[in-house]
């Protein structure tokens, strides 16, 4: 009994000294990230499409299956805009005579964390891996595609650049930029997401690409090729 009290007392002292309690990383992530990002799977079935309207940022409850750890830690310390016109449909657009343009003043700037906070948050998020089993079934393996053919495929044949940028000066504004995708995302995630985005997010505004596995892998290889030439 005395040992139990002693260990409890030691744990309390330790948490007082370090500022952490047992649940602290979860609390910290909830406080820092939870107001914009879903840290648990939303109840898509109950909320329907309205779930998307309540979102301010991408869900993070499968962050450990999606992001590369080193990228996430670096991003949290030096964030940059991933969605050039904000996150749809809450994106702040300005209606002008020349068309809709991003309203720079209304675009949300991502929180910037210290190195230690970024490390702690990254460690926590990378442990959120509910789809590991699903990812293990993806059979993408890195290949090579010529930049010329990959560019043609991405832009002309698949039309991905309607929404996504494969370089800073080409592509639309509503989807996440993709010239950083290779450094940001795990290859199997890119492949699995492209095969069926709805498996990851029933309210995604990414249309399900009508293409076979080989075509998906070519696109992943293209993202690798542009990522490695950045």
């Amino acid at each position: 009994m005395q040992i139990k009290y002693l260990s409890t007392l030691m744990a309390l002292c330790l948490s007082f000294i370090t500022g952490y309690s047992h649940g602290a990383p979860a609390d910290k992530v909830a406080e820092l990230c939870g107001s914009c990002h879903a840290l648990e799977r939303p109840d898509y079935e109950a909320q329907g499409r309205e779930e998307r309207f309540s979102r301010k940022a991408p869900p993070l409850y499968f962050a450990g299956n999606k992001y590369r750890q080193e990228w996430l830690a670096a991003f949290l310390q030096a964030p940059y805009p991933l969605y050039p016109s904000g996150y749809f449909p809450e994106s702040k657009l300005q209606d002008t005579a020349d068309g809709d343009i991003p309203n720079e003043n209304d675009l949300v700037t991502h929180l910037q964390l210290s190195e230690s906070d970024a490390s702690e948050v990254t460690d926590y998020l990378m442990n959120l891996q509910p789809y590991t089993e699903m990812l293990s079934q993806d059979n993408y393996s890195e290949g090579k595609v010529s930049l010329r053919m990959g560019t043609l495929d991405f832009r002309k044949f698949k039309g991905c650049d309607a929404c996504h940028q494969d370089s800073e000066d080409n592509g639309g504004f509503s989807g996440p930029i993709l010239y950083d995708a290779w450094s940001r995302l795990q290859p199997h995630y890119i492949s699995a997401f492209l095969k069926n985005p709805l498996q990851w997010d029933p309210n995604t505004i990414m249309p399900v690409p009508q293409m076979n596995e080989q075509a998906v892998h070519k696109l992943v290889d293209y993202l690798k090729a542009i990522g490695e030439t950045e």
Partner: protein
Amino acid sequence: MRAVIAITLFTLLSPLSHGADDNQGKRLYTMYCTQCHGVHGNGLGVNSSRMSVQPRSHIEREEMMARSDEELFKVIQQGGKSIDKSNLMPAWGDNLNEEEISALVAHLRQLCCEENGNE
């Protein structure tokens, strides 16, 4: 009396009636279409300035009336290529169910052809 009931029923059952369907169509349009077709449906969405083929304006009555509801349904469900148009218009048939696509078609009809449709 019969005429009143008939008119009431027609109004309630018409796909173009204002109500839940219209609101659903408008919400879906905001979510899936405005990026390219514009927040006012004028074809000048935020992506349009960099697109090789300009998105259709949904507020041009004449052009929109040249398309049947079935064609609009098909192009939303199966993409631009299904009606020999640009592949930049994706197929939404996996993302949206038929009821949702019908709600979008009804909203397009409102945008193009009803007073104050694009407000």
